[in-house]
């Protein structure tokens, strides 16, 4: 399946990936309104760790055997057998945050429910990749089955 790969040697620590992730997951889809008007402010699924010298964008790996899916007690967290995308059905999530505790990458965020990267619903290149000014994020086919 295609995944978002972070290349830390090119990461600027500008954090535009976070800005555009929030925007992509906002109600309005508008960068200014998403950040200044919407309540609650959308949660960024991707986080840049580090400083200007060494930084890297961390987000969901969509693992072949996701710990979050195995740990989910309601079945809200699922890995799509076709696309391989791991998503959280927020209507079924009860907010126990077991997934957050077991994720080895710290890629589950808290909103009203557990919030995580959905690769922009598989609608082509995710917003973080599309808007990265230095190609520190790339969306490429990697090994690992989509099942």
């Amino acid at each position, binding site marked *: 399946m295609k995944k978002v790969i972070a290349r830390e040697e*090119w990461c*600027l620590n500008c954090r535009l990936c*976070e800005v555009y992730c929030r925007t992509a997951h906002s109600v309005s889809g508008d960068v*200014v309104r998403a950040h200044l008007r919407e309540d609650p402010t959308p949660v960024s699924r991707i986080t840049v760790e580090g400083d200007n*010298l060494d930084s890297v964008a961390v987000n969901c790996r969509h693992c072949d055997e996701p710990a979050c899916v195995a740990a989910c007690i309601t079945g809200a967290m699922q890995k799509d057998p076709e696309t391989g995308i791991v998503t959280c059905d927020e209507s079924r999530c009860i907010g126990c945050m077991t997934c957050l505790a077991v994720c080895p990458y710290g890629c589950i965020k808290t909103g009203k429910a557990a919030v995580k990267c959905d690769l922009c619903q598989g609608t082509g290149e995710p917003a973080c990749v599309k*808007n990265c*000014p*230095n190609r520190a994020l790339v969306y490429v086919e990697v090994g690992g089955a989509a099942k």
Partner: protein
Amino acid sequence: MRYTVPEFEVERNLQRCISCGACVRQCSYGVHYFDDDGKTVLADESKCVACHRCATICPTHAIKIKAFEMAYKTHFNWTPQAQQEILKQAETGGVLLSGMSNNKPYPIYWDKILLNASQVTNPSIDPLREPMEIRTFLGRKPKKLTFSADGSLATRLEPQVQLETPIMFSAMSFGSISINAQKSLAMAAKELGTLFNTGEGGLHPALRDFRDYAVVQVASGRFGVHKAYLEGSRFIEIKIGQGAKPGIGGHLPGEKVTVEVSNARMIPEGSDAISPAPHHDIYSIEDLRQLIWSLKEATQYKKPVAVKIAAVHNCSAIVSGVARAGADIIVMDGFRGGTGAAPTRIRDNVGIPIELALAAVDQRLRDESIRNTVSLVAAGSFRNSADVVKAIALGADAVYVASAPLIAMGCHMCQQCHTGKCNWGIATQRPELVKRLNPEIMSQRVVNLIGAWNHEIKEMLGGMGLNSLDSLRGNRLMLRGIGLNDRELEILGIAHAGQ
């Protein structure tokens, strides 16, 4: 108290600012910062250099950089800039430094020269439908060609350098620019079939794969020069002078001499890299001849040797001497040539325009019947393809460009190269800034730029009814001056528009 006022003003549109802090993290000059609430972004405008990094990266276009408007009592002579420069010197006691190139409003002759086009009597050519040759060969050409009975060439040709475009990238050393900037140019040169120039900085190990596309420089500091460096190149360039600072040398401060720079230059880490004003073994044309032939000997006469000089008042006589000293290629750098650092007074007041120097030199070499012995490369600010075409018609074989590809890579001409804080990752050695320039992206942007110029050059050639750049070289009948006086027209060797 500081007597100088800020040059620029940061205008933040608070209706659009989302406090993401990209500007705070991206500004190496420390202009933007968060207030204690961690949300309100403030700005110390006195530090702003108008590099536009913040405005470019801002996801909501909330930032505008404006001139800091300060009313002065009008005085034609004592302009605000003249006053500010005096205040700076009164404060620091130092020589004023600048980057990039001469920014005084001297005449730009390219804008006073017009190109011809074919009408009726000779047909124009559509380069999209018919072959159009812009391939360029640099090197000493024979006086005439002789052929043996079977038709094969009997004349022995001197080494030639084949370029797929008449545009090469000028010398910018690793040290003055970052390895990523240099690698972008090297990758672009390879894709375009042209050359980049190492400057006087040696060849970084990361660029060994691009040696076939490298011009290597031998300058007064002789940094990084060794046999493999010379042999790995396409041609060797002896740098005598630079258009931005004729008559003076170079100084790379020790703080920029990182481990990598020290390895490439073969000097101790942290030591100042000083290129003397003259080559201390060249005090005459005869001395230059010795160096030219030493370099030819060192590379088994397989590579052309170029000599680069700044365009100065008596450059025709100098170039004639250099040609006779054995140079195969002569580079002339006009007073608008760029630099990583130069004293402002030198940058803005020394040298002459490349347009006049090129025309005068080409004519002098023709008058002396030695024009074929050298290729002429013009440098010193080509802003677009029309400038290049005009230079070719004035007699250049090829041109060097540097500022244009740097702009393609993000440079906004803030002229702060000498500070080493380049926010675009070009003129800096700071690792957190260098990584901002990804050669994968930037080489492609440079390829796009020069590719576009190539298309335009072909269109202009076609319009003139020419199907090869060689038909335009030195063909000044294709040029007319506009708004120039008789003396200028005489030096340029062109007629006035309407004639």
